[in-house]
């Protein structure tokens, strides 16, 4: 009863119940084979006297090195002894050795691993240091020393090997225990006053069980080969006693007369180790499957209906702008089966700046990468066109023109379209000096000598206002500040004299003061080079500062597109209006900054009607009934709202 009361409260905080490991393993053929073989082997070796009519030492000098026959299923050795019998009797010592070494390995490994991870502090440091020291030793050599001191004592050898193997287990369990220790239900159990050993036994150990099984299986596999190896070296069971390693040694003596003997001597050994390896893999996979089962099953059914919904009406003809440098039409992108970006269209004219605005999770960054044909996370473009300078960069994979499109993309990257990413600190190869990366970009795009490239690199660094270009060129990315790294990343993008720069939130990761500098830099660079800029941002200040026109995205769709001044003066979508109202630059002193209630629906969970309806102050039944199409209520104004005409009227009346 007392036990009941302690387990009930923490059950509530424990992970939900799951199908047992044995049942999950039973579904894997490899695991079934592995367990089957190991059980069979154990039964056959323990009951070996029943299975063969020959004793392992029984010689028959008339039949030496005989092949398999009814009398001797696996043949005989150089003294005419039955190989099956020797194999089965020899297997006993193998199983016994594995049991010994494994027991020591588990006691030392689990004990010290848990202690180091759970107790921490000085105990942890001591154990970790000792484990590191032991980890560096080649175990076999130490075992040989032990065997030279205790000749033929396989028990001593196996105990030693168990100890020498344990540092691997200690390290892994320590790391995992550290993680589990911090979890809520363990903390709750601590607060509830459960004793340390009870917590370890009831809450920590069960979580480590599959890891321990995996490691134990792997270690057992190694012990089997090591035990056989010692037998082979003549350091295990002494002749004439049978052992697996001894069988291989016997086979090596007869290798020129009868190579067959190698097969019965080695194949069972190999199968046993394979079985242990497969068992370990299967347990690991089953454990992984268990942890990841829920999210993946939730994701897949979402793909179907949403892919179909992508075919929602796109009302205005919206022809590509003939003056545009970049024309994106109906671009749709799926990642992991989920439609992340749907039917996005916009143009960027030569020399102009277009802002792509929206909250996180609206598909802005994915759209910008889609322009370059570089979708992260194994995603792909499922439809639409990306026309740069008259050349289509998108063609469905496998379709005719796919290789032409990929060749066109390769040609355009760097010289036509360049790219600056969000996180400057990870945007450069950390293993090359800045100057070398820039020089590679220069030489890739322009050719020329090393010297010319070096001069150009210094020129580029000066262009992005780097104070001492020669010194910075010699530095590595980790030696740069965030703002400096972003300038270098911009210099890298400029190396090919691009006509369009795609900048994905180039200032988000930077300090406020540095943000302004980088924005100013982008504007001056644009004025100097005349390149167009497509900038992804959630900051209206950036839009107001830099952009001529803006595209507002919500939940993977374009919801509004207009010139920036008109957009600020007269938003024609409630989402745009909400975002503008929430703009901290417009905050009024003493009054709370308005926010849009709710969050952006994730790709798998988007409503069939207007995706913003749930958060929209103006929503009514028209909004949730069916997908809302884009309309053009005024010249050069595109919006996806059923009330756009009304919004326009109200605004004009004001």
């Amino acid at each position: 009863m007392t036990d009941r009361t302690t387990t009930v409260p923490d059950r509530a905080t424990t992970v939900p119940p799951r199908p047992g490991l044995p049942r999950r393993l039973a579904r894997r053929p490899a695991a079934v084979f592995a367990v089957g073989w190991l059980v069979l082997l154990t039964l056959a070796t323990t009951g070996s006297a029943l299975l063969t009519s020959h004793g392992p030492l029984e010689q028959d000098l008339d039949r030496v090195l005989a092949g398999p026959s009814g009398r001797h299923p696996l043949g005989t050795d150089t003294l005419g002894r039955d190989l099956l019998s020797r194999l089965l009797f020899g297997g006993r010592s193998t199983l016994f050795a594995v049991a010994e070494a494994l027991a020591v390995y588990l006691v030392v490994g689990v004990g010290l691993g848990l202690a180091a991870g759970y107790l921490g502090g000085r105990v942890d440091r001591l154990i970790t240091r000792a484990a590191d020291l032991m980890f560096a030793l080649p175990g076999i050599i130490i075992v040989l020393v032990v065997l030279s001191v205790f000749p033929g004592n396989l028990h001593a050898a196996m105990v030693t090997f168990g100890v020498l193997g344990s540092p691997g287990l200690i390290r892994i369990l320590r790391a995992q225990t550290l993680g589990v220790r911090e979890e809520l239900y363990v903390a709750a159990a601590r607060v509830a006053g459960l004793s340390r050993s009870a917590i370890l036994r009831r809450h920590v150990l069960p979580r480590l069980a599959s890891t321990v099984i995996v490691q134990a299986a792997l270690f057992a596999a190694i012990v089997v080969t090591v035990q056989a190896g010692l037998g082979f070296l003549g350091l295990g069971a002494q002749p004439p006693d049978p052992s697996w390693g001894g069988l291989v040694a016997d086979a090596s003596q007869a290798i020129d007369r009868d190579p067959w003997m190698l097969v019965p001597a080695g194949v069972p050994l190999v199968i046993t180790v394979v079985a242990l390896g497969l068992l370990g893999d299967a347990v690991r996979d089953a454990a992984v499957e268990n942890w990841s089962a829920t999210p993946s099953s939730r994701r897949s059914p979402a793909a179907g209906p949403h892919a179909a919904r992508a075919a929602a009406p796109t009302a205005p003809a919206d022809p590509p702008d003939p003056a545009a440098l970049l024309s994106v039409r109906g671009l749709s992108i799926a990642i992991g089966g989920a439609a992340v970006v749907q039917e996005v269209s916009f143009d960027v004219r030569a020399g102009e700046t277009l802002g792509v605005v929206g909250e996180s999770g609206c598909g802005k960054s994915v759209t910008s990468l889609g322009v370059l044909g570089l979708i992260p996370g194994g995603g792909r473009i499922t439809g639409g066109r990306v026309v740069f300078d008259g050349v289509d960069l998108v063609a469905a994979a496998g379709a005719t023109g796919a290789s032409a499109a990929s060749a066109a993309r390769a040609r355009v990257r760097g010289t036509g379209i360049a790219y600056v990413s969000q996180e400057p600190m990870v945007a450069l190869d950390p293993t090359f000096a800045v100057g070398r990366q820039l020089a590679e970009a220069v030489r890739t795009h322009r050719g020329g000598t090393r010297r010319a490239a070096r001069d150009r690199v210094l020129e580029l660094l000066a262009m992005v206002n780097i104070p001492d270009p020669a010194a910075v060129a010699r530095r590595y990315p980790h030696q740069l500040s965030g703002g400096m790294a972003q300038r270098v990343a911009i210099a890298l993008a400029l190396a090919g004299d691009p006509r369009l720069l795609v900048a994905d939130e180039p200032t988000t990761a930077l300090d406020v003061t540095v943000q302004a500098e980088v924005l100013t830099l982008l504007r001056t660079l644009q004025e100097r080079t005349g390149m167009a800029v497509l900038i992804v941002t959630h900051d209206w200040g950036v839009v107001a500062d830099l952009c001529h026109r803006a595209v507002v995205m919500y939940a993977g769709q374009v919801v509004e597109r207009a010139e920036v001044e008109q957009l600020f003066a007269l938003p024609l979508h409630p989402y745009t209006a909400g975002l503008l109202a929430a703009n901290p630059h417009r905050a009024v002193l003493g009054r709370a900054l308005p926010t849009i209630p709710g969050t952006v629906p994730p790709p798998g969970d988007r409503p069939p009607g207007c995706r913003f309806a749930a958060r929209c102050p103006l929503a009514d039944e028209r909004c949730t009934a069916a997908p809302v199409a884009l309309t053009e209520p005024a010249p050069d104004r595109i919006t996806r709202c059923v009330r756009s005409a009304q919004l326009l009227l109200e605004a004009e009346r004001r």
Partner: protein
Amino acid sequence: MAILRLVARRLLSSAPLLFLVSGLTFVLVSLVPGDPARTIVGQHATAEQYASVRAQLGLDEPLIEQYWHWLAKACHGDLGSSLFSGEPVTALLGSRLPVSLSLVVAGTAVSGVLGVALGLASARRGGLLVRAVDGLSLLGLAVPAFWFALVLIALFAVELPWFPVTGYVPLLDDPGEWARSMVLPVVSLSLGAVAIIAKQTRDSVLDTLGRDFVRVLEANGFRPRSVLYRHVLRNAALPVVTVLGVVLVSLLAAAVFVETVFAMPGLGSLTQQATVQHDIPVIQGAVLYITVLVVLVNLLVDLAYGRLDPRVRAS
């Protein structure tokens, strides 16, 4: 200078390992049943004779002092003499070292080149190659080097007389024969190592391919070839180098078996013989040599790390 400091620091920090191993060996050896002094003087010696031999061998001192003397002598290159052949241990080990080193270095080189190539290919192509690498790593774990070596001998030395069955020809005697005598040992040594390196390379390359800078370089028009072979491979190399170090050490251990099978006069087969013959000074010396090699390998790994990763170099 920075490099020298790093080397000095690493060598100092490996001192505990050397003490641990040599001390452990010493303690173990002191447990040997039987009395070496008695063995030397024989059953009929007087008590004085016995005592003087004991004193001569230092056996009348406490263990810690015996260890200290052994260590002091070891530092001067005196590891005693083989109980079996009477040869000085350092001379014996010195003559065996080149054989083992050439075997292990060749094994690491072969498995490194094959493993990285296989891992890179399976990271890029996926599909069948991935399964092949997985299968190979299971086989590498399961097929013991000594049995694999015998299978190779049966096939390629007995059945098809392409390579010598056993034996070792020194490189300087006849380079061609040396190479021929090395093929089967190196192949049997490399099977497991290729798989381990291929798997690590694949995981590491896939991991690097997902990093931001790769997308930035691609987006800015770096040649795909350069992105893969210069930038991705170099970044992916760090964990692979660690594994290479581990492989080198494990090959030192596996060499015990392979040298025995092929009757090569290396450190490994010497250790095996000494174990069978209970030739304690030789074992102590061999363990010390192998530990020093492990320390040197770890030092090399650290230096390679420094060359590959500027962040390590700085710290």
